[in-house]
């Protein structure tokens, strides 16, 4: 497929990279740690340990990061203007949730060039749930002239654990927002930088990874890999029980979590290949959730016993 590289003379709206920069800057000013994408394949920004684990326990934390999110079943070989194998989310976690968070969020829209008074902006009920993470929250999707641009959630549970204090999670859909700002119809026509489009940067990846996940992946190999990763995660989690002292304080629960994330992605690959029945689907998701929940409760124990897990000052 040939990619159009046609730049408008008067570029409208922020480029994709400027959008990321503006949001990053805005949230850094709000006191956020600017984190980087997690380096294990994930389906959503929530799966980054900076969200999944940070929201547990009492320590205040503010963080923002871009997270590439892989959803193999959503791939369309680069042929659909709106659907992607991998898309980018800008994720913000504010713990505890500030009282003026809706206003601060709306200011972030101003920061990326949206004049609020010219638009129809609404918070419509949309409660979020991730069955594989044992996580859920209450909130809205934010609609900008009918377009869903952000998932806004008061996290209630993560890894099956009631959260205290409550964190707010903001997930911006970067491609959608950028397409809106630039007024383009296809994600591949987005200006990424001054002279490159989203298609220039990403089309090949969409094509090849769609082919892999729909047509070429070896589902038997993926299945056995799932079993292996799960086994290792379980062994790690089992052995945590018997640990003490320094060994316990530096016990690699984060590695167990990585293995859990790998299982989740392998599950998604099998799902895209269409080799999972509905019943099996529920069972496999339950297995990933079990790992996530066990990791979360062990992590919380570790957190309560030691002063500074993940390097957080007590």
């Amino acid at each position, binding site marked *: 497929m040939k990619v159009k590289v046609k730049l408008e003379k008067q570029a409208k709206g922020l480029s994709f990279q400027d959008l990321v920069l503006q949001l990053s800057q805005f949230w850094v000013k709000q006191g956020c740690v600017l984190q980087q994408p997690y380096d294990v394949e994930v389906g959503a920004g929530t799966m980054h340990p900076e969200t999944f684990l940070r929201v547990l326990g009492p320590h205040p934390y503010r963080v923002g990061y871009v997270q590439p999110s892989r959803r193999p079943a959503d791939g369309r070989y680069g042929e*659909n*203007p*709106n*659907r992607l194998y991998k898309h980018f989310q800008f994720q913000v976690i504010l713990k*505890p*949730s500030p*009282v003026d968070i*809706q206003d601060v969020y*709306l200011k972030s829209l101003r920061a990326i060039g949206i004049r*609020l*008074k*010219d*638009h*129809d*902006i*609404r*918070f*419509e*009920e949309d*409660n979020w749930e991730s069955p594989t993470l044992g996580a859920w929250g*209450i909130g*809205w999707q934010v609609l*900008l*002239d*009918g*377009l869903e641009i952000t998932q806004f959630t*008061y996290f*209630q549970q993560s890894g099956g654990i*009631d*959260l*205290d*204090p*409550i964190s707010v999670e903001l997930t911006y859909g970067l491609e959608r927002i950028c397409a*809106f700002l630039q*007024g383009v*119809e296809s994600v591949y026509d987005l200006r990424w930088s001054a002279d490159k489009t989203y298609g220039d940067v990403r089309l090949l990846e969409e094509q090849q990874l769609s082919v892999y996940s729909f047509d070429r992946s070896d589902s038997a190999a993926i299945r056995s890999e799932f079993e292996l990763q799960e086994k290792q995660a379980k062994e790690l989690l089992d052995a945590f029980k018997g640990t003490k002292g320094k060994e316990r304080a530096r016990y690699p629960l984060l590695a167990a979590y990585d293995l859990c994330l790998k299982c989740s992605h392998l599950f998604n690959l099998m799902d895209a290949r*269409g080799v*999972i*029945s*509905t*019943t099996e689907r529920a069972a496999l998701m339950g297995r990933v959730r079990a790992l996530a929940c066990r990791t979360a409760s062990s992590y919380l124990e570790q957190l309560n016993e030691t002063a500074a897990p993940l390097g957080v000052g007590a």
Partner: protein
Amino acid sequence: MKPSAPSKSRPLELVFEIGCEEIPAGMLSKAEEELRANVEKLLTAEELSAGTVVETFSTSRRLSAWVQGLPAKQTDVELEVTGPPKSVAYDSVGAPTRAALSFAEKQRVHVNSLYLLQTPKGEYLAAKQIKSGRTAEQILTAVLPRTVHDLTWPRSMTWTGLGGPRFIRPIRWVVAILDGKPLKLTITGLTAGNVTRGHRFLGSNAIRVTSFADYEKKLHSNGVILRAARRQEKIAKELEGLAKRGNYRVHEDPELQKLVTYLNEYPTVIQGDFDPAFLNLPDEILVTVMRDHQKYFAIENKSGELAPHFLAVINADEDTKGIIRAGHERVLRARFADARFFWESDQKCRLADYLSKLERVTYESRLGSYRDKVERIRDIARWLTEQWFNLGMLQAHVAEADRAAELAKCDLATEMVREFPELQGIVGGLYARAQGEPDEIADAIYDHYRPVGLDDPIPRNLTGCAVALADKVDSVVGCLAVGIVPTGSSDPYGLRRASLGIVKIILEKKLPVSLSLAIGAAAKALVTHKPKRGVTPGQEAKALDFILDRAKFVFREREQFGYDEVSAVFRAGADDLVDAQKRLVALKAIRKSKNFEPLAVSFKRIRKILEKAGVPLTNERHVNPELFESAAERDLHSAVRTAASKVLSFKRGGKYQEALEVIAGLRPTVDRFFDEVMVMAEKEAVRNNRLALLAELLREFTTVADFSEIGGEEGS
């Protein structure tokens, strides 16, 4: 306690507002109602309700209450306190004793103001006390927060942490003004005041208010229409105005109107357009995308064809630059493009090709996949149509019903239904038609989930009815067989709805269906096909009872038959619901005739006698005329025999009213029998013969309706 003279003070006004982050629109009208009930309940409990009027309001960001005519305080109450008895209170010369003095002291009254009170136990010393009422301010400050805490929501949340407040969404401000002054109360840690907030983008974030009139007016000038009725009026007027401009009308959708009324604090309707090329897609899909996903109203011309425009309700006062319109158009374009993509890509293969994919769609783990369910539905649908055809119903097409059943669930594996689950069945029907299946089959697939409620129409054609019945009977029998029984509000497999659907289809289409045989056919299909689930006779009986319970409900609640009439007819059997309905109509008609109710009483008596004597109706004992001792006995016997043959022939001809009239005509003979004959005679042979006669009578004449169920003793 008796109230003293009512307080004369000027009535007060309360303005109360809970400011929230956006509350889900679908919950507001109920919450508004509940808040009003809570405030009224509180005022009544606190004796402040006399002369008050409570109104409540809501928008997405607030719940408000307005109380007019509030008394400034509770009325004072005069209390009478009794002290020691007269004999103890006064000495022999009538002077107060120490006991009387200390009572007066305790009551803080002068001893001279004490008086004697006559009681059933004798005369006692008494004192008057005035208990002064608390002020409205005191009471409301203490208890008003409860009206908010007591609101019930489908799913509440916390926005601070485990010990924190719970509500539907975070509460951010509270206004409570009594007679112009803020009440000093706290709700979820927020101190109430007299400052409200306007519309997010059209108003100020801090508006000081003094009274309700002031509150409503200032909200309005800050972009908030407080009253839902006003918002709805504005929406309705603007919808109509915009549609009329193009000589169109709005595609009726009262539910959507209500939703957008509560979704927006300042609703304004704008029109957008879409590429007429999308009109090639079926209307059902276009309307679903617009309504369910974007909350847009579709518009249509006078003949009901969709126009390439839509109406969106926005939360703003205007769209002068057309920016909002352009945005909404862009979103809809992408949505329609998606739908078109699904429409085309789904149809790259034929509907029947999705059958194999249904193997991966589980219906219920113990009942297999939808692929398995399809085979069962086919069996039952074929069985039903064969039965109907054999009864002479020429429009019963076995092959078509089988084909429709085979394709009915295929759309569950399509991308279109995965994206728009509410279009299940409809998408299958549309694809079938587009792929050249005959209308009869396409319509049957399209309709087979119907009726989804008692007000939803049944499938248009008989083939659709067969598939719908087969699907629903399979669900009921299968689920009950694996122990899925609906409880309370939980009915995940929709078994109640399925049963109501079965009843409604049979009755409306007047279909000859033996429910027990249909259940038997479903049980056979379950054991025949994977996963080969056996159904016990007990489970079959349970399924029958389950469906009959729904049928009783329909006859009572929808067709207005009496509770006892339904019991009487069902006791005589209701395997064929259409027949049961005919018998109900006959019974209702004859009920008013003079012989009927007395005969019903006699039947009840007969049933009791037989029960007491331990004679089961089924045990047919022979009546021996040789053993009769009186004419009354003999006459009853011959009357029963004559009437029985008449009743039988009327019944065969479906003439139930005539049959019931014959039975009612037995009344004088039955009455005479009971007047003159002792059933429980000394001689065993005579007694047994009389019991056999009564058993025969009850057996013969309770096949249309069991009269002993009729009348006063229901539920006993």
